[in-house]
């Protein structure tokens, strides 16, 4: 990923952005954290959060005009959170005196602040904290300006005095009864001070010869708060009069102070000022499934919330987040972060030269299914990122071999003599159509390949050829562009030789490969053909059953397939239940992206969670989904079970055949079809493949977990018996031998039993012994 690409992707992930309350607040109070503190009963902590952005929390906490409440997400499921009332409760409950006051080193510039209202007070607070010498001119004999319009019960006068006392500690010189325009003129201020802030509060008769707008108000730049005259800034009630917003004035004073600070340092007044003042949030928050709750009503409305009432009300805060993808995808939730963080980890992993590539497993654990993109408000696709990353890792020679070695060898088997086949229909020397069942359906339920091929030959007149191969999806998922390209080129070559027929696919992953990478090939899914041409077997269903559909993740966008499958089920007499995550929002079963090889525990968790979505039997039209769900104990049909299986409900309990049986099923399928359809003789198993083994069921399960095939054991025994290189255990009478066909060394513990060999144990490792070290 280059830097620009990374930034572009990171921008899409909005998790962690400030919610509407904070962005709408002109000074950006961290309302979410404030609520968390109040909910926990930590009112001092809550006050600290207010104090981070509010210079006079005791005042503003009591009189804030709360624009935040109008945009609070809670409004969609009840009343908005009573943010203002909770701030009031907080400042009433805690001592609002700040612990420490920080003043930066003294500067030799002088600033005049005109007006002791909220905007002037804030400007004075900020500028004096930055070390400037501030003189505040107030026309009355008291500070506060318009806040004195608030009744005493709401804003006690001693609070005003206590809060504003901090200005004295900051070294601000306050001159009461000093109306600018009468006691002192603006030009005077211009001579004695380096900058002036006008926070007059209302439209005053004194306009100081400054530029006015149509309504007779001072013209103030909305970004910099300058008036047009050198060094003179303005804001607050002056800008909004006759309207008055206490928090708005506070914000104006702060922003004008920032402008003055830059002005006095000859820095740009315009640069990097996005998100000052109120702005629209980028955060998306779903309120789906949230219980509607009304606001807590205080017992004593004048007093406000008690401690307990406040804690309850703060508990209604939604703690707005996005996390839509994390909610939907177990993989994204597993690493306890969210996409923007993952993008950084992945980028770091890819760029690293020396060191531990700790994100390798995470990159290889994604199923590449694209559900994240479907639920993300900004369409971020982490699957695309992971696949591209794998391709980069392969090119750089940094891809760990172990997660993908086995499925790639499985693919190699499917494209070898054991399974690969490309034939025209017997009696025809051309094919209008070509049946491509895929390697996994052939491995899992080879009898259906036979039956479906017969059905297609019957229904179609132009000749239906057969191609047995792997489409190459495992190579694509492993980031092996080289292997993937080789496989595709061979498919196109064979397809061209056969006259470029329309390819009928029975697997959604094959469909995705053909659709995206072989656009020259016209394709159609088997389910659409069956939907159009009619069911192969008319079976009377005595009672309608109910099934929930497991849509394949690789055809999530192909609506016609979702529809065809459902129509077929209805015609078979089934009531179709829609799972929560179905059609374009379907989840992967864990085989996609080779997740089940890179991270078997995670794949199990994915399936186990999906199993809980419904009590009904599931039906999948992907052979891998069917087998994987069945292997975790869920009754799952393949669509062909229901099409051909009449009322055989036991088919849903069929076990996953296992890796070795999958190879054998494919090989036998090829042999059977060659014999029965093309009348060709098939060779008997030779060499190591003729070795007969005796395997207990427990051992089969161990081999399955360790990705050890029967043929691997055969190769070891073949080598051991021919070479004599085997270890003999005198106590047990058993032999132990090892052999490394390609990249894995297999160990087999066995005893000859007549013509056969009884297998006691099998294990493997990838490391090779390269030499001896003398101790």
């Amino acid at each position, binding site marked *: 990923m280059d830097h620009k690409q990374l930034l572009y992707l990171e921008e899409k992930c909005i998790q962690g952005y400030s919610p509407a309350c904070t962005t709408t607040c002109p000074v950006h109070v961290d309302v979410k954290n404030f609520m968390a503190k109040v909910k926990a009963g930590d009112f001092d902590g809550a006050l600290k959060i207010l104090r981070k952005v509010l210079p006079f929390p005791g005042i503003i906490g009591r009189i804030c005009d709360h624009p935040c409440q109008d945009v609070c997400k809670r409004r969609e499921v009840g009343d908005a959170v009573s943010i203002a009332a909770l701030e009031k409760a907080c400042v009433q409950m805690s001592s609002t005196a700040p612990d420490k006051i920080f003043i930066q080193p003294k500067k030799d510039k002088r600033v005049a602040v005109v007006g002791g209202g909220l905007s002037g007070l804030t400007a004075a607070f900020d500028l004096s904290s930055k070390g400037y010498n501030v003189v505040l001119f107030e026309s009355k004999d008291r500070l506060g300006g318009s806040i004195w319009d608030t009744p005493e019960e709401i804003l006690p006068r001693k609070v005003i005095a206590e809060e504003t006392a901090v200005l004295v500690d900051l070294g601000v010189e306050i001159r009461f009864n000093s109306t600018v325009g009468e006691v002192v003129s603006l030009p005077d201020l211009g001579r004695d001070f380096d900058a002036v802030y006008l926070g007059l509060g209302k439209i005053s008769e004194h306009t100081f010869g400054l530029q006015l707008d149509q309504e007779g108000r001072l013209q103030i730049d909305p970004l910099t708060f300058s008036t047009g005259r050198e060094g003179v800034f303005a804001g607050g009630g002056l800008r909004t009069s006759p309207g008055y917003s206490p928090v708005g004035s506070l914000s104006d004073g702060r922003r004008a102070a920032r402008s003055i600070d830059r002005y006095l340092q000859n820095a740009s007044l315009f640069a990097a000022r996005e998100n000052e003042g109120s702005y629209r949030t980028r955060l998306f928050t779903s309120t789906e499934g949230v219980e509607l709750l009304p606001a807590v009503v205080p017992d004593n409305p004048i007093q406000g919330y008690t401690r307990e009432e406040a804690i309850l009300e703060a508990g209604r805060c939604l703690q707005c987040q996005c996390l839509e993808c994390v909610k939907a995808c177990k993989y994204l939730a597993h690493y306890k972060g969210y996409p923007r963080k993952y993008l950084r980890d992945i980028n770091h992993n890819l760029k690293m030269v020396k*060191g*531990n*590539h*700790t994100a*390798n*497993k995470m990159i290889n654990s994604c199923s590449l299914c694209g559900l994240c993109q479907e639920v993300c408000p900004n369409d971020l696709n982490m699957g695309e990122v992971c696949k591209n990353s794998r391709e980069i890792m392969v090119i750089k020679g940094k891809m*760990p*071999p*172990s997660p993908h070695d086995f499925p790639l060898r499985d693919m190699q088997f499917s494209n070898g003599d054991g399974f690969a086949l490309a034939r025209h229909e017997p009696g025809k020397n051309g094919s209008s159509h070509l049946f491509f069942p895929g390697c996994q359906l052939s491995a899992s339920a080879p009898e259906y390949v036979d039956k479906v091929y017969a059905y297609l030959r019957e229904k179609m007149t132009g000749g239906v050829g057969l191609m047995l191969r792997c489409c190459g999806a495992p190579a694509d998922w492993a980031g092996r562009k080289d292997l993937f390209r080789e496989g595709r080129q061979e498919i196109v070559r064979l397809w061209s030789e056969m006259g470029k027929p329309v390819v009928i696919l029975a697997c959604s992953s094959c469909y995705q490969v053909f659709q995206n990478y072989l656009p020259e090939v016209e394709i159609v899914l088997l389910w659409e053909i069956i939907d159009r041409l009619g069911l192969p077997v008319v079976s009377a269903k005595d009672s309608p059953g109910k099934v929930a559909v497991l849509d394949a993740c690789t055809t999530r966008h192909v609506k016609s397939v979702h529809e065809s499958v459902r129509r077929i089920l209805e015609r078979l007499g089934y009531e179709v239940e829609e799972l929560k995550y179905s059609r374009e929002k379907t989840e992967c079963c864990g085989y996609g992206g080779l997740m089940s090889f890179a991270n078997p525990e995670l794949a199990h968790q994915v399936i186990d969670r999906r199993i809980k979505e419904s009590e009904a039997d599931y039906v999948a039209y992907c052979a891998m989904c069917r087998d994987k769900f069945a292997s975790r104990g869920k009754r799952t049909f393949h669509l062909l079970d229901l099409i051909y299986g009449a009322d055989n409900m036991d088919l849903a309990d069929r076990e996953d055949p296992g890796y070795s049986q999958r190879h054998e099923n494919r090989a036998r399928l090829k042999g059977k079809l060659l014999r029965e359809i093309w009348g060709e003789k098939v060779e008997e198993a030779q060499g190591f493949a003729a070795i007969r083994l005796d395997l207990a069921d427990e051992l089969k399960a161990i081999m399955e977990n*360790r990705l050890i095939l029967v043929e691997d054991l055969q190769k070891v025994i073949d080598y051991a018996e021919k070479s004599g*290189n*085997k*270890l003999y255990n005198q106590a047990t009478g058993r032999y*132990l031998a*090892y052999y490394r066909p390609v990249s894995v*060394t297999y*160990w087999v513990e066995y005893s000859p039993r007549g013509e056969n060999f009884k297998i006691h*144990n099998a*294990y*493997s*490792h*990838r*490391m090779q*012994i*390269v030499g*001896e*070290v003398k101790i």
Partner: protein
Amino acid sequence: MGNDFTIELLKCPECGLVLVPEDMAVRKMLEVEKSLEDK
């Protein structure tokens, strides 16, 4: 991945066959293999 690692194994003095016990293969070696892959 081209990294070396030293462990103690039994070796037949006559025929030179080495014994990697199951426990070592499925535990220690697997651990090391996985961590070396990520370097």
